[in-house]
């Protein structure tokens, strides 16, 4: 009896009161940031920049975060969230900014056009291209190996204990943009994808492969500092033409060169003020990013220190980003 009464009241309250809870309603489920709610150390507010798992991304994120903190007085949170989950974060309020987005037309359609919880915030100035690479010594010894058509001829070279009798194609973090499975299937390559699990695994394998003359075929991308230290050669796959990657299952062409861009949540674009302006204005070159990434990976610097170093050395560049 009591229970039924309670249930009735509850239903009534729900129906008349608030009409149900949505996950994107006015930041209802947006967790209040600890600083923001507990004290007033940063009157400017909090910006949440998702951190995707590769160092180039972190370099950009750290430079923007440093400027937000030290020039504009914001508090910055940098949660580790992988690419696709970060887009979901726009909806839940866990993410304000993705600072380096690699394409993702499907997610753009879903979150920008359909759900309208995210908006584009312009190019980062970085040109990005993904591809398959081998250490240079292999290209020297087998000049025709750089043509994807000949990969099957050399598949035996790339066998490892993990590749089950086929050639190994080493992949990175499971969350990376990937056409690998479709490419292997559609180009009828006798290769198996072996996931190293991280950027670090790719770098370590590439360095060992060139230094110890071990065969290796691996997924990699530019901009990356590694190209200035280890000689790598890209394997040519069938050339990219507009729309050849439209159906992810039928891709049989190489990756396109992409304009890397910034995506922010709709809420941040509307209410982010100067922080949003700064993110929108942020624009630098591949060389800039590689320098910060290199300091972070090989210079033993923290992200913040590497960002600080670049910022101190390049005032003219970043001062143009600061909103007036």
């Amino acid at each position: 009896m009591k229970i039924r009464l309670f249930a009735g009241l509850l239903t009534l309250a729900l129906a008349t009161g608030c009409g149900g809870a949505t996950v994107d309603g006015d930041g209802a489920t947006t967790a209040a940031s600890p600083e923001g709610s507990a004290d007033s150390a940063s009157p400017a507010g909090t910006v949440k920049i998702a951190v995707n798992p590769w160092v180039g991304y972190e370099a950009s994120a750290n430079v923007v975060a440093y400027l937000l903190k030290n020039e504009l007085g914001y508090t910055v949170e940098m949660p580790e969230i992988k690419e696709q989950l970060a887009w979901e974060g726009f909806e839940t309020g866990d993410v304000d900014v993705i600072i380096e987005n690699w394409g993702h037309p499907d997610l753009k359609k879903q979150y920008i056009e359909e759900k309208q919880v995210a908006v584009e915030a312009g190019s980062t100035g970085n040109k990005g291209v993904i591809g398959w690479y081998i250490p240079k010594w292999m290209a020297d010894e087998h000049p025709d190996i750089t043509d994807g058509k000949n990969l099957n001829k050399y598949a035996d070279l790339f066998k490892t204990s993990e590749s089950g009798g086929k050639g190994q194609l080493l992949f990175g973090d499971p969350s990376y943009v990937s056409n690998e499975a479709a490419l292997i299937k559609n180009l009828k390559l006798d290769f198996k994808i072996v996931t190293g699990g991280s950027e670090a695994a790719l770098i370590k394998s590439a360095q060992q492969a060139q230094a110890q003359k071990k065969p290796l075929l691996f997924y990699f991308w530019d901009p990356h500092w590694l190209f200035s230290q280890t000689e790598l050669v890209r394997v040519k796959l069938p050339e990219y033409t507009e729309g050849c990657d439209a159906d992810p299952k039928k891709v049989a062409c190489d990756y396109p060169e992409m304009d890397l861009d910034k995506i922010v949540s709709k809420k941040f674009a509307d209410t982010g003020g100067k922080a949003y302006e700064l993110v929108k204005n942020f624009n630098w070159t591949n060389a800039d990013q590689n320098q910060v990434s290199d300091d972070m990976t090989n210079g033993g610097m923290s992200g913040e220190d590497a960002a600080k170093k670049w910022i101190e050395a390049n005032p003219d560049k970043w001062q143009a980003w600061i909103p007036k």
Partner: protein
Amino acid sequence: MSSTTVTSASGLRMPRWAAPAGITVLFVLVYLVFRGTGTLPHNSEAAPFTAVTELREWIDDHRNDNPIFLYFLNYIRLFVDLVYTFFLSTLVAMGWPGLIGVMGGLAWLAGGWRVALGAVAGFASFGVFGLWQSSVETLALVAAAVLLSLAIGVPIGVWAGLSERVRKAITPVLDVMQIMPTFAYLAPLALFFHIGAPAGAIATMIYSMPPAIRITALAIGQVSPTAVEASASLGATRTQTLFKVYLPLARSTMALAVNQTIMMALSMVVIANLISAPGLGSDIIRGLSRAQVGIMLPAGIAIVIMAVVLDRMMVAVARRDPHSRIGRGRLAAAGALALTGLAAAAFVPRQWPAELTVSVTRPINEAVLWAETSWYGVTTFIKDTVTIYLLNPLETVFTTAPWWLVAAGVLLAAWRVSGARPALTALACLLGIALLGTWEHSMRTLTTVAVAVVATLAIGVLLGIAAARSDRFSVVQRPLLDAAQTMPAFVYLLPALALFGTTRFTAIFASVIYAVPPVVRLVEDGIRNVPASVIEAATSTGSTPGQILRKVQLPLARRAILLAANQGIVLTLAMVVVGGLVGAGALGYDVVLGFSQRPDFGMGFVAGVATVLLGVMLDRITQGADGRSLPRKRNFT
């Protein structure tokens, strides 16, 4: 797929090994004939996968207009978020001196100055490691999850303790909750509760609630019936009896329930980071994705420290004599400590000062690099040998065997060890795996589990025997086992990753370290429990110690050893799946991929379900070992 025990029912004088050996030979022959036929190769676009992916897209589109979400799930999410945010803002508002002081004060109240000293030093160490912020987030998440787990679990537990029927109804549910590898929860949760802290807290609750329910039920069930009768005869109502008799008498066991709940929650919050829950888990995941042990290790240690501090406090509460009151001196000391901390918090910045942190990342990374390069030859040799001579051939057998042959093998083995009903359950699970389209990957995971279980049992039984035979060895080993069992599963990935990179062997190595301690314990106890009179009798007939071990102790300890095998298998499976993060591939990797790539969500989700089925199947095959009818609680602490 041979069976493990022999009961020669026929009157014929056949050697004990004849029947299983014959069946094994038969299986080998059938395999050789039908190899490669009836296999169920993996197809990443299998119908169940795409169906779930579409369901997810549908849910995503209707999250904000479907009544189930609007009036139910989203409210749960909001409520859990509210609880988490409340704890987080309270903890942050205390500032670091305040939190350290209050924890110290509570510890003093619970167990005196020693425990308080441990709490203060432990919490201070989070700041020293530079992990203050993450630690506070983890603590808030654990607090929210534990509070809610107890709020739901204790009433259910009390009910189950009072009513046999309720207990029988919920036991199988709790069994599945506990056999289910933690990884498997995450995808469905992300589907219904999205990502972030609330989803993480809910995932943690599912994992930490079963011990709260079970131990509470146990505590209530243990209350002496005389006390209850006395209370009833004095005319007390049922409510009065519950609050004045049952709960006070069950108090110290219930403190254990709280303790268990906290420990389970702590080991789960790390994994919850995969669905973007904040806290120390994010440092560990960051270390994994950068292959830097230097980032992971301090965070792993911080979780262990938090577990130890909270464990000590709760154990102290449980052990305290219920009739003694807290002395005034202790109360004053505790209050003074807490107030000093809170007062100090007003004068120092809320953030832990940077000057007081010690960065250990670089030295650890360098040490790991040294180990990697100087042991490279040995570790690669071990890894390659095991992979080439054991793992790969076994994987080939499992994946090329016809599915009906594997099914027959499972049925037969489970029937022999556990009886008809478990055997049918095991078979049903296996067929479910086939229908879900996860056959090939399940077989690969099974291979990894099999190799890991063999290694775990070999090492565990050897160490167990050694400990049973030498008191000195046992004394040295025990604290190591204790420590190993308090650590969250993730921590075991670190040394494995450092030594072996991302391969299947890495997952095997990690799961062996994870599963060995309970096996050692069970084997040691089993052997020690062999009656002394039996040993004396054997000695007096002139048996050598070796003969006693082989002919007397091991056979008599068979049940304990088989139970150890069952525990080892369930634990290994849980860990091998987590090993998907470090190169184990198969089901665990599918689950990880499901979080990472939207089009693969369905595959990840289904892989999670398949993992549960695999776990139930393995448990049913081996559960009859000690003659129990239901799987026992996993032995975690």
